[in-house]
């Protein structure tokens, strides 16, 4: 592993700090310092990428096996020539030659990728979506669970009937929203109660009330776990179906189908919201990183001598930019 001389590190920090400030100066308005940083970035990164490509790929993986290895590996000449063929795009008359290499790359990639993508993306993700809604280890069948299950189903059937018949069309959105949320709330309560009561006996309740035996209390947590796992799966189920339906244009999105498509939009918006939040976090992290660099790596350890030289360079550049700007303006007026 290589280490750098202290003077080189200091110089690097000052250049990096100067370029950082030059880029940030764009927030005020466009200026020559920003332009200088922009051009430096493109030039330096292109040069650096070329050197790395040569050092890590072209030289050890192409030049050495063909020219310096014994026995030489001439097979590598073939991909090398195909790579060079790509550059024929710069010459109009022979640009068709580049299509041969391109066709090879596309063909090879498609052939290799197709089965893996079907397995790793399509089937694997479908598999993680199609899973049982109810985790059976939380449930046991008894009179309570059956009763509560029937009641919950009854509520949902009633809701579907009301929506289908559009009986309460004159109710207005607010009152209908209350009806829907009421039914959902009852279902949740019945669900939790069904799991809870399916595991608790009358004796457990007696022991809890009169003897203070709280050992069965964890059953409540279990019922919450069971409910939450089913709830998440329901969210995924509804999300997948409604979002897919939103992009299904063979049927006109009206009446109840309009609601389904709208639900799909809500799910998409939820994803975009989460993605936006994460993006803000990412961008802020970069700003934090730069500020930490400016404060901790640049301002704190810098000496007075370094500041004099740094500000001197800044002043010289500013004068040069001013002179350049003046000559440009005078040539424009002429």
């Amino acid at each position, binding site marked *: 592993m290589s280490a750098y001389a202290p003077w080189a590190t200091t110089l690097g920090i000052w250049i990096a700090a100067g370029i950082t400030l030059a880029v940030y100066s764009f927030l005020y308005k466009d200026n020559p310092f920003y332009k200088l940083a922009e051009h430096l970035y493109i030039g330096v990164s292109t040069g650096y990428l070329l050197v*790395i*490509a040569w050092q890590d790929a072209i030289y050890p*993986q192409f030049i050495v096996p063909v020219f310096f290895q014994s026995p030489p590996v001439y097979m590598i000449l073939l991909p090398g020539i195909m790579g060079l063929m790509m550059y024929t795009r710069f010459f109009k008359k022979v640009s068709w030659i580049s299509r041969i290499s391109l066709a090879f790359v596309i063909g090879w990639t498609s052939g*290799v990728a197709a089965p893996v993508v079907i397995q790793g993306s399509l089937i694997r993700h479908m598999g993680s979506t199609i899973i049982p809604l109810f985790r059976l280890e939380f449930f046991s069948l008894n009179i309570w669970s059956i009763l509560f299950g029937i009641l919950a189903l009854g509520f949902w059937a009633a809701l579907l009937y009301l929506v289908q018949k559009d009986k309460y069309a004159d109710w207005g959105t607010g009152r209908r929203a209350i009806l829907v949320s009421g039914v959902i709330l009852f279902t949740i309560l019945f669900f939790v109660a069904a799991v809870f009561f399916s595991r608790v006996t009358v004796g457990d309740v007696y022991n809890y009330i009169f003897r203070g035996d709280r050992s069965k209390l964890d059953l409540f947590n279990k019922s919450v776990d069971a409910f939450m796992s089913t709830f998440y799966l329901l969210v995924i189920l509804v999300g997948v179906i409604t979002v897919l339906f939103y992009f299904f244009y063979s049927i006109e999105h009206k009446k109840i189908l309009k609601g389904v498509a709208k639900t799909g939009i809500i799910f998409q918006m939820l994803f975009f919201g989460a*993605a936006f939040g994460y993006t803000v976090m990412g961008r802020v992290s970069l700003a934090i990183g730069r500020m930490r660099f400016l404060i901790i790596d640049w301002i704190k350890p810098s000496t007075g001598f370094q500041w004099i030289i740094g500000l001197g360079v800044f002043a010289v550049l500013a004068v040069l930019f001013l002179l350049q700007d003046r000559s440009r303006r005078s040539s424009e007026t002429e």
Partner: protein
Amino acid sequence: MLKFLSRIDRRVIYLLMAVAIIIPILVPLNLPVQITKEVRGVYDEIDRLPAGSRILVVFDYEPASQPEVEPMAIAVMRHCLSKNLKVVAISYLQLGRGNAEIVFNMIQKEFEKKGRILKYGEDIANMGFKPGYSAMILGLGKDFKGTCVTDYMGKDVYSLPILKDVEGLNDFKYLACLHDDSSISYWILYAYEIVGIKIGSFCTAVMAPGIYANLDAGQLTGIVGGLKGASEYEKLLNYRGSATIGMDSQTIIHMLIVIFILIGNFSYLLKERRLKKEQFL
């Protein structure tokens, strides 16, 4: 009020943001960090590995993402090397190779101060930049050394003791992918699906929401997403690194952004109301 809000210069917002970032850096707030199961999934998997196991750390991020991903790289390297795991770095981005070098230098110096010399080629190794995307990963899966040929210094990989007995990717116990793009999908498809190596994602916050589907599908053991994920990993390792310190600024900035959004919406509603009133009159 509406006039005042609409006249606020955007540069005032930039200034407020800069102040909100700088103050917590100078005066740390030490806000608590909660560990999520996504980060624990990665930590536990690495923590479980027996000493001497090889781990492949993929440096697929560019310097532009350094403030976000480097704290994760440092944390995962500290974790692996403190557990005496052998770390091999590789990158399929040209600029990722330099990032690996920076982190390796930092970690080597840190361990040297503690009295442990990390030997290059025995404890750690950097394969450098290897081009080819899917072809490269498929090659690594079957013939790791034959695909790498040389390390980042041009040294023959067959001479590195760390790669002794290594044939393919299945000789590595875990793959920690530090990435700022969708390169993880290549590793998932060609390394996890074909070879079966376990993968943990250390990604920028922008990438995180899209990878949750892979986590749910069991293709990843966990996700360390953005600065928040890095701070959680630092907490699991019991130290306050740059990510944990940065989370103070992150929290203040997010509060500030929420206030800005509220102000923006408030002024929009005021404007709408005024327009409606004018139309009515």
